[in-house]
């Protein structure tokens, strides 16, 4: 079937099977391998994408669910060669090690900061508890999210 959706700011018409997993559509069919798969069962958050601004697990979504939606994957976040504040904070605060959880973690952070612009560390930990990281012990990820929140909040006020 033909699906129409907006992906990273571009209107797309995509011919695909309605039961194709979104993670496969992105990675295998569209070459957007920034979205990772590591458990395939909704336990780890590595395949997180934003659908209409909300974080969703692309390994649990089927292509048909994308009709009329607006998607953001990690590839669409930096603009004009400038890292997003959250990406910049992850780099500067050492929140990236192997990097396989990073795209999902960054997008989950975007959703978190949209809902809770000035989170406490505890809130960050709770909100990101659906995204597993095996390398960092999470501390520097929390540091990065707090720093990004400060930058974004400071920028708005």
């Amino acid at each position, binding site marked *: 079937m033909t699906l129409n959706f907006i992906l990273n700011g571009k209107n797309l018409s995509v011919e695909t099977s309605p039961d194709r997993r979104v993670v496969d559509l992105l*990675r*295998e069919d569209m*070459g*957007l*391998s*920034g*979205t*990772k*798969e*590591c*458990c*395939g*069962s909704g*336990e*780890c958050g*590595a395949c997180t994408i934003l659908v209409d601004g909300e974080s969703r697990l692309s390994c649990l979504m089927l292509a048909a669910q994308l009709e009329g939606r607006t998607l953001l*994957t*990690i*590839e669409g*976040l*930096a603009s004009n*060669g*400038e*890292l997003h504040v959250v*990406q*910049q904070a*992850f*780099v*500067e605060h*050492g929140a*990236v*090690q*192997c*990097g*396989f*959880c*990073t*795209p999902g973690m*960054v997008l989950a952070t975007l959703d978190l900061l949209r809902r809770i612009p000035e989170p406490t*560390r505890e809130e*960050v*930990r*709770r909100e*990101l*508890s*659906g*995204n*597993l*990281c*095996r*390398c*960092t*012990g*999470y*501390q*520097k*990820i*929390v540091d990065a999210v707090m720093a990004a929140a400060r930058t974004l909040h400071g920028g708005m006020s």
Partner: protein
Amino acid sequence: MLGNKNMQNHEVREIGVIAPRIDALTKVTGAENFAADLYPEGFLWVGVKRSDFPHANILAIDGLAASKLTGVTAVLTHRDIKGSNRLGIFEKDQPILADKTVRHYGDAVALVVAESKAALTEALAAIRVEYEPLPPVFDPEAALETGAPILHPTRPAGNVLIKSEIVCGNGAANLEKCAFQATVKIRTGWQEHAFLETQTGVAWMEEDETLSMTVSTQTPFRDRLELAEALGISPAKIHVVAPCLGGGFGGKDGVTVQGFLALAAMHSGGRPVKIYYSREESILAGTKRHPLRAEYTVGCDQDGVLQTLSCRLLFDTGAYASLGSEVFALAMEHAGGPYRIPNVSILGSAVYTNNPVSSAFRGFGVPQAAAAMEQVIDELAKAGGFDPLELRRKNAVRRGDTSPTGVLLTQTTGILECLDQLERHPLWRQRTKWGESAPAFKRRGVGIATIYHSVGFGPAIADYANAKLEILTDGKFRVYAGVSDMGQGNASTYAQIAGHILCQPHEIMDLVLPDTARTLPSASSSASRTTFTYGNAMIGAAELLRDRIRARAALMISFQLLHSVPIEEIALLPGVARHLPSGRSVPLSLVATMMDTSERTATHSYTCPVNNQPIASGENLRMHGFPHRVVTYGAQLVTVEVDTLTGETAVCDMLNCVDAGRVLNPQAYEQQVQGGAAQGLGYALFEEFAVADGRILTGDFSTYILPTALDVPDMVTEPVTPDEKDGPFGMKGVGEIGIDGVFPAIANAIAVATGVRITAETMSAEKVLAALRQTGQEGRP
């Protein structure tokens, strides 16, 4: 390159200062290509048919029906393998595809190559394998009994992979003379690496019959040799590329999917093949941390001076040796902890069973040994009425001492300073207050552990690296990192080292990750040696290239000044070489174009010195790495809160005092300590790996529970930084020490809080609650 204004303002990041990792920039945008991310044009999927039994003879494999299915291009079995069909480092006992016998449920029996995942699934189900079940053995003690089923009948030692004894002084007999004694008997379980990128790769045959492979591996150079022998092809005809790994932790130390990729590529007529394990297959087929059964008795005199250690260690290595003997040797070497103990008897063995295969996992046997040793030290403190920190301090090794296993400690030994840092910290000073401040239905306690961890391979295998560094004609630099970066950021650190020596910003250097055709042979990414060894090699290469650049710049400036310019008068600055007396500069891009191609690349080889002292006992461990020379140390503290209603344990604070020598990049150093400690926390509390009759019951992430951001507290990391002369810039290697003491520190904290010890595997809520029930504490406010 992406980056904001700060990042574009590239600076020289000296050794010792925070240097953002180069790879973070590409990882944070999704641009970094991991092995999992490669989908070559026209590729075929590869899948594996696994065993239906934990132990059985294979009578027949019928792949005919499968091979006739639409979309299936090949069905392969052991008959398609021309070489020895045996993988392994020392003990080559593991087939790529089982030929006569299967020895655990993860054993591979056949391969399918297909156009789609759907065709793959259908074909794997259509393969018929006829088995003759054999009696299995799952209990490591039962595996030692007479009449037990033997996994590898051609081995003279039956199911014993390796056995050794280390005896010092009067051994266990001296226990009689001790004023105080304590005994602890524990079992630790398997631990799953749970790297987020499962085992994966792509491969194809080049036109010249070279097998080309891009794979998630810690050991690209060693893989070539292992594959060549098993497949009967020349190692020169195998090309391995190792891009950034999505985690490794030891689970990609050696061949995982490489044999399957190679075999499939050799039967696909030049088309690329791809394999990418599901999480379930990764857990089923991947290696684990070795389970240990240990009984420890220690004794001291009236003053708390340790006199005697007597212990027994039994490791379950599973169906194949893999790195079992090496893990065993390191556990034996570290079995007595970083203490002075004159009389020691350590008896250990590692045995085959029909359980999952155990091999390398961060810590490499030391976390298991420390789990036992550090709990019995706390029990001894209790028995003798000693303060647990004072007891550790009194007995801690100093440089020049001999370790409990007879190893002379000739290098930096910072354990006392680690204990000093721990003692000064408020988390320790306020431990009594912490215990007393527990709210209703909670119990609080503080636990500590003292640990040490050797660096590198030891005397048997050359611990070597070959660095390669190039100045490009645009004046920028390219670092050829021959050691895999499994996420620890070592490749970026190599660039930082080069940048420090060349006075250039490292962030704009080009990194070439391990590639057997471009980077030079270097040993594995493992053993806390990744930066230690390659870093030393890089110092040599960078100094050589620096002086070549200076020499060529001196020549160029001497033509301008019309007098000879000595190299000492040339300094490298970002982008230029400057003649200091005249102030004249030459851009590096110009210098580089005046250099011959052969001059623009510098290489340097480094092999670590080894400990050549005679060893009184445990001689058979030498070929597996015993003894070591450079050692890291640590003292770890946790505060816990145990819930008397649920049995749940929360780790509230963690303090890591670590001597890993000088710190090259404080951010990368903390990443290693925090990440290791978090894995230790999971190992202690959540990661119960359940196996029943050889079958894994925790086969996915909904049953095998990893720590989340809610479970790991903010930690304090306090480096102790002696200048280790063997190490590059005085460093030692910080990759593993952070995991080693967390399990016993948590066990000791729970014991302080509740008086109970969980002695079987993880300290899960269920087990803690049962222990609270037995001691009348369940549900007590």
